[in-house]
C-alpha cells in the first residue's frame, strides 16, 4: 500500500477519534477527553500534512487542485487547522464536536474517490491555485463559522429555557462565539472574494462571455452577497446577537449548494466535485434526474 494511502487513512482515524473525544468532553465533561481531542486533532493535522506531501511526491507534475477528491481532503485539512487554532488561541473545544465530524466526513468522502479520478479542469494555468485554494480555505472558514452559529443558537436557547447544567458550562460565552463567528466569516468572505475574482479572470479567458451563467458561479455569488450583507449588518448597522447568526446558517447552506452545484447540473463549466463518483455525491445531496 502506498505511504500516501496509509497517511490519509491514519488522518481519517485521527479525525474520527478526535471527534469522539470532543463529544466525550462536551457531553460527559471529561477534561482528559478534551486534552486527548486537542492532541489527536493536532497530530491529525501533522499526519494530514505528511499525506498531502506524499501525494505531491507520488503525483509529481500534476496539481492536487485539479483533483476534486483532493478538494475534500484540503477542506478537511483547513477545518482541522482552524479548529486547532481556535483551541490553542481561545481554548475553545466545544466547536470541535461539530467541526471535527465535518472534517471527518470530508476526508472520508475524499477517500471514497476512485484513485486517478483527477479531472482535467478547463480552468488552468497560473490562476488555478489563486482560484481553488482560497475557495477551499473560505469553505473551511464558513464551515467553522456555521458551527459557531449553531452553538450560539443552542446556547441562547439553553439560556432562555434555563437549562444551564453540564454541557452549558463547557460552551464559550455567547458574545465570544459571535465574535469568533464574525472573525471566521470575515476570513471566509475574503477568501471567497479572492476566489471569485481569480475565477472570473480564468473563466473569461477560457469560456468567454456568458461564463457567469454557470450554476456554481451564480450560487457562489449569492453566497457572497449573503456574507457581504452579514458583514455590512455588523460593521455598518451595528447588528449583534441571534439575528446575525441566521445569515451564517443560510450563507453556509448556499455555500454547500454552490460547492455541489455541478453535481446537480453536470453541464456546469466547473468540474464535478466528486469525479467519477459523482453519483455518490448526488445520492448524498441531490438526486440526479
Amino acid at each position, binding site marked *: 500500500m502506498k505511504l500516501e494511502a496509509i497517511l490519509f487513512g491514519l488522518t481519517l482515524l485521527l479525525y474520527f477519534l478526535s471527534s469522539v473525544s470532543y463529544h466525550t468532553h462536551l457531553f460527559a465533561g471529561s477534561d*482528559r477527553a478534551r486534552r486527548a481531542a486537542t492532541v489527536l486533532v493536532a497530530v491529525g493535522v501533522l499526519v494530514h500534512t505528511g499525506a498531502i506531501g506524499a501525494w505531491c511526491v507520488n503525483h509529481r507534475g500534476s496539481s492536487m487542485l485539479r483533483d476534486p477528491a483532493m478538494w475534500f481532503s484540503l477542506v478537511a485539512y483547513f477545518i482541522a487547522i482552524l479548529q486547532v487554532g481556535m483551541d490553542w488561541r481561545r481554548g475553545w473545544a466545544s466547536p470541535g464536536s461539530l467541526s471535527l465530524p465535518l472534517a471527518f466526513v470530508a476526508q472520508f468522502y475524499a477517500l471514497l474517490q476512485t484513485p486517478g479520478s483527477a479531472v482535467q479542469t478547463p480552468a488552468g494555468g497560473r490562476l488555478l491555485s489563486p482560484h481553488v485554494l482560497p475557495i477551499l480555505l473560505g469553505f473551511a472558514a464558513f464551515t467553522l463559522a456555521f458551527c459557531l452559529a449553531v452553538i450560539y443558537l443552542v446556547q441562547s436557547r439553553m439560556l*432562555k429555557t434555563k437549562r444551564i447544567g453540564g454541557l452549558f458550562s463547557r460552551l464559550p460565552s455567547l458574545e465570544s462565539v459571535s465574535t469568533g463567528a464574525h472573525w471566521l466569516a470575515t476570513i471566509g468572505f475574503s477568501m471567497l472574494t479572492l476566489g471569485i475574482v481569480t475565477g472570473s479572470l480564468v473563466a473569461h479567458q477560457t469560456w468567454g462571455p456568458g461564463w457567469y451563467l454557470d450554476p456554481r458561479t451564480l450560487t457562489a455569488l449569492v453566497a457572497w452577497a449573503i456574507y457581504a450583507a452579514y458583514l455590512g449588518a455588523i460593521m455598518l448597522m451595528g447588528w449583534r446577537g441571534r439575528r446575525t447568526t441566521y445569515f451564517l446558517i443560510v450563507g453556509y447552506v448556499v455555500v454547500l449548494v454552490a460547492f455541489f452545484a455541478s453535481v446537480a447540473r453536470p453541464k456546469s463549466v466547473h468540474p464535478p466535485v466528486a469525479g467519477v463518483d459523482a453519483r455518490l455525491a448526488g445520492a448524498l445531496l441531490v438526486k440526479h434526474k
Partner: protein
Amino acid sequence: MRIVLVGLSHKTAPVQLREKLSLYGRSPADTLQGLRSATHLDECAILSTCNRTEIYGLTREEDWQEQLLEFMARQAHVSPGHLQDHLYSFEGTPAVRHLFRVSAGLDSMVVGEGQILAQVKETLQAAQDADTAGTTIHTLFQHVIASGKRARTETEIGRGAVSISLAAVQLAKQIFQRLSNHVVLLVGAGETGEQTAKMLLADGAAPQILVCNRTYERAEALAQQFGGAALPYDRFPEALVRADIVITSTGAPHAIVTVEQLRQALRARRGRPLFLIDIAVPRDVEPAAGDLEDVYLYNIDDLQAVVAESLAGRQMEAGRVEELIEEDLRKFQRWLRDREVAPTIQQIQQWASSVVDAEQARLGVQLAHLSERDREKVEAALRVVTNRLVLPTILHLKEAANSGNGYHEVESVRRIYRLNQSDEAEPEAQG
C-alpha cells in the same frame, strides 16, 4: 514514626473557639517553632482557615495527643478539658486521608470550594519558611496539593455557582466575553442587588456602573461606592439601551421594567444581548420580558435553582473525588512505605556484601593457589549464598510494608542485624 493530626473545624467547634485558634494576626513561623519545641514533633505544619485549624505532625512520641492538646489549649487560652470536646485526632492513614479530603474541598462548608487548595499551599510554604517541614511533610503536602488540583480538573467538584450573586456573575460570563466591556445598571438598592453588583465589579465588570434608585441621594451614595454614576429614577428606561446587565432589586409592589419599555430599548440595541437579573420580590420585571429575543431574564427562583443545581452537582461528584483521593492516597503510601523500608533493605544488602568481602579477605592466602577464574567462582558462590540468606528478610520487610506494618518490622530487623549501631537510620514515617 507516624503522621498525626489534631484539629477542629466548623463541624466540631463554634466560631468563638475557632477564632481563638486561628493563625490570623499571629506569626506562623513563631507558632510553628513554638509548636515543635513544645511537642517534640519531628516535622509539623498548621492549616489555619476561618473554618478550621489543624496541626499535622510527624512524631515518635506515644503521648502526642496530650502534647498537642496542651499546646492548642495554651494558644486558645482555654482549658484543655473544654477544648478536648471539640477536637478530632487521627494518626497514620486516616490523618493523611483527612488532609487529602480537606484539600479536595470535601470537608469544606461549601463542598468543592476552591480557596482551601490555596490555603493548603500557604500552609506548606509557612512550614518550609519556618523550617518545620521535612521530607515527609513536604512530600505529603505536595501529593495533597496535586490531588486537590486533580479533583478540580478531572471532576466537576468545583463547578457552578454556590450563591445567588455568584450564579448571576456566572451567567453574565456565559453571555458576555469580558464583563469589563459592559455597563451594569443597578435599579434599587436591595442588599442582594448591591452584593451582586459588587461581585460583578470584583470580577472585572464595567468601568462604569449606573445606579438608579427612588431616593436619588441613596443612588448617589451607591454610585460613589462603586465608582459609577447615579441616574434619576425616571430615566432608567433610557439606560436600558446602554446597559447590558441590569440588576433590579427594588421594593416596588409591581413590575417597574415592562415589556413595552424593553421592546423600545431592544430596537435601539440592534440585537445586543441584555441580561436581566431580577432579585426583587415581588418581581421588578414583567415575566413576559423573558420571551423577547436577545433578552435573558433570571429571577430569584431561577438563580436559586442554579445554586441548588450546582450544589447537587458537587455532591454527586463527591463520590468520584473520593475514588480519586484513594488512588492518590495509595501513591503517597507507596512512597511512604518505600521510604520506610528501603534504607533498611539497602543496609542489609550492604551488610551481606561486607560479609563476603571479609570472608574473601580472610581466605585470600589459602585460595592463592587457585586460578583467577576459580577465585571468581568462589566469590560468586559466596555472594549467592549470602544473598539467599538475606532474601527472606528483605521479602518479609517488603510484605510488612505493603500491609502497613513496616515500621515495627523495620525496628525488629534493625535490632537483629544491629544496623542502628553502625549508623543512624533515616527518619521513617507511618501513613
